[in-house]
């Protein structure tokens, strides 16, 4: 009899456990890839905590449509086989969307995502051509691609040089890999359209040696403006070299991966980099309401704000990616009228994103079934007095040209 009672209690507990797990399954799962230990770990260690903090903030407010969101992070060390494995794992866990991390990984997963009809986001990664939603229905760059950044850089140079680029000279200093070469068609087309002379200067990997290129630019070519597109350690080297050869940093504008606080520090500090311009696809600085909310959330738990927040460039990008993901899920939940959403619902959710700005941290994205980039908005910040200072509001440059190039595939 006693045994029976025990058995009953056990069965009850088991039933409770089952129902608890059934309840837990109502979470909406997001598959998040990250790289905290591989070649791009300097980005990942700040970006991914930013992502998780925003998801935690959403969950602390009750989640989306009453369901909590679970971001399942898998670190793939920037390796393609690991990324494939992580994707299959995410799929097994029922992820409604995948946050892809890394260009080779984005390319490797494109076909699989399309076959499985799961939306994947590749902010700052992958091919610019993926912005074309007709050709790549399940890849969402959601942030300015290298093409849009190139257009933005030329537009910025044009404004700085008095509104015309006719007869001006622009140097393009780039990391010699596929990503570094990607913007070239746009720059060439713009050189023709605006009538400036463009010359390219390649930096071979790993990009820690560019004394010759900097000297070539500053003393032989003598451009009116320099656009740089460098990765990893090399942006800081470029700042140092331009300083050494005496080229004014205020006439240098960098793409998004040479635009963090860490690059400035590695170059020798803010005093050295004074005047250096950088393109951003997420707002920079800690002056955004959403970041204050995250700090408040930590304070309520009795914890200090995470130290990763100090790297506002990468942390804010993490917050932006999370915010766009949550917005897509929100749209999907709204359209479906419940939280039992499928990956396809979320894909449609992405394509309805419009008019949310998170207090300026997110550009006025407008994603639809053709434009998966959301417009290609960028903002330029300048290193000034020990921090990044906003130079321009959100803008999109040469949209008609880019649209034409996207339609023809470059």
């Amino acid at each position, binding site marked *: 009899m006693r045994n029976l009672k025990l058995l009953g209690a056990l069965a009850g507990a088991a039933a409770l456990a089952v129902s608890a797990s059934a309840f837990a399954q109502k979470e909406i799962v997001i598959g998040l890839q990250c790289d905290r230990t591989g070649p791009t770990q300097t980005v990942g260690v700040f970006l991914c905590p930013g992502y998780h903090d925003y998801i935690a903030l959403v969950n602390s407010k009750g989640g989306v449509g009453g369901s909590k969101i679970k971001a399942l992070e898998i670190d793939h060390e920037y390796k393609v086989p690991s990324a494939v494995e992580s994707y299959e794992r995410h*799929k097994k866990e029922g992820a409604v969307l995948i946050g892809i991390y890394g260009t080779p990984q984005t390319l490797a997963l494109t076909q699989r995502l399309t*076959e499985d009809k799961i939306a994947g986001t590749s902010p700052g990664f992958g091919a610019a051509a993926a912005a074309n939603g007709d050709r790549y229905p399940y890849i969402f760059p959601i942030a300015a691609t290298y093409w849009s950044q190139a257009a933005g850089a030329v537009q910025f140079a044009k404004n700085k040089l008095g509104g015309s680029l006719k007869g001006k000279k622009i140097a393009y200093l780039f990391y010699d890999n596929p990503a570094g070469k990607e913007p070239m068609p746009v720059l060439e087309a713009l050189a023709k359209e605006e009538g400036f002379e463009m010359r390219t200067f390649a930096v071979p990997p790993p990009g820690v040696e560019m004394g010759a290129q900097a000297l070539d630019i500053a003393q032989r070519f003598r451009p009116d403006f320099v656009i740089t597109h460098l990765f990893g350690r090399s942006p800081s080297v470029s700042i140092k070299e331009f300083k050494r050869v005496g080229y004014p940093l205020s006439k240098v504008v960098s793409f998004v991966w040479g635009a963090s606080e860490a690059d400035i520090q590695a170059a020798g500090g803010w005093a050295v980099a004074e005047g250096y311009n950088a393109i951003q696809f997420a707002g920079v600085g800690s002056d955004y309401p959403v970041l204050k909310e995250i700090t408040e959330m930590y304070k309520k738990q009795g914890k200090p704000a995470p130290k990763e927040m100090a790297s506002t460039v990468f942390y804010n990008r993490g917050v932006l990616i999370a915010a766009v993901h949550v917005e897509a899920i929100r749209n999907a939940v709204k359209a479906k009228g419940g939280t039992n959403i499928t990956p396809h619902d979320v894909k449609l959710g992405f394509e309805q994103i419009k008019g949310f700005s998170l207090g300026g941290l997110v550009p006025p994205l407008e994603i639809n079934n053709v434009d998966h980039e959301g417009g290609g908005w960028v903002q330029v910040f300048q290193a000034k007095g020990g921090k990044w200072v906003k130079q321009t509001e959100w803008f999109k440059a040469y949209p008609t040209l880019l649209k034409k190039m996207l339609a023809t595939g470059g």
Partner: protein
Amino acid sequence: MFHRESGYYKTTYAADMALYPLPVARWTVAAIALLMCAAPFFLHEYYVSIINLILVATVGALGLNILVGYTGQISIGHAAFMSVGAYTAANLAVRMDLPFWVTLPAGGLMAAAVGAVVGIPSLRIRGLYLAIATLAGQLIIEWTINHVPWISGGVQASIEVARPTLFGSQLKTQFQLYWFLLFFAVLAIVGTLNLVRSRIGRAFIAIRDHDIAAEILGINIFRYKLIAFAISSFYAGVTGVLYTYYLGIANYEQFTLITSIDYLAMIIIGGLGSILGSIFGAIFVTLLPILIRLGMENWGAFLFGNTDINNLIPNLRLIGFGGLIILFLVLEPEGLNRLWRNIRNYFRVWPFSY
């Protein structure tokens, strides 16, 4: 323990030369084959995808082991030969619309040709110097693919390839691709098993053990070193083609120096100069990060906070990986394969071990 090795008499040369002379070995192989055939029907797609990755890695590890383990020539350009195979197959498949049974051997042969050229320095130099020469090969191939749009397809240096078609139907799902990859992995394993006991394989081993002695014995070192490079690169090229069809894209950024080093780690951990070791190595290197992550996800919460775990898992994997390589080099230089043999030998006469 389970079987006796005495009492089997071989009466023909064929029986003497059989790959598996003992019935128990034949039964084991049959059981493994049966298991591999049954596995995808029972396993979740996720686990099938892991096996797929292991199968591809096995082909590459076998190829590297032929060169490093059997012939004793160090190469850290293995991944570059994979990219040669990948781009050859991708170009043939896209431009000339050729099926995989043409592009796959073509990719392998192209890689073999390039590998033989990169292997030429091995005739004069060995050891660390050869490693640097193959490193140069790796970088030259990477540079060439990056800078010649005719090979790499221009922007972003990648070529999208349709998945393989067999009898009119496209192999798309992990389940379908499993059979595709299994076929070539088994072919590679059987091929290597037979290669290393052939005239060529014995010449490789003679060169590894003492190349001058081998030359005096009449082995043409020039020829066999280049053959070793060519065969090894052929395997690498096939690995690249398999990746291309598995992922649906050829992209050289996944075949960088780090990948070469990963494959070296596989054969060092698995066991140099051993076929089973190559398979063990491919399994181990693929599974280790997954197992560490699973362990941390399930039990890490007892020790660490949620945010720490995300940081801890990748770092723990790096520490574990590095530590294990050192441990293997110090304690068991012959790798997992030797460990397996030790266990087997212990149980061979168990419990009457004297």
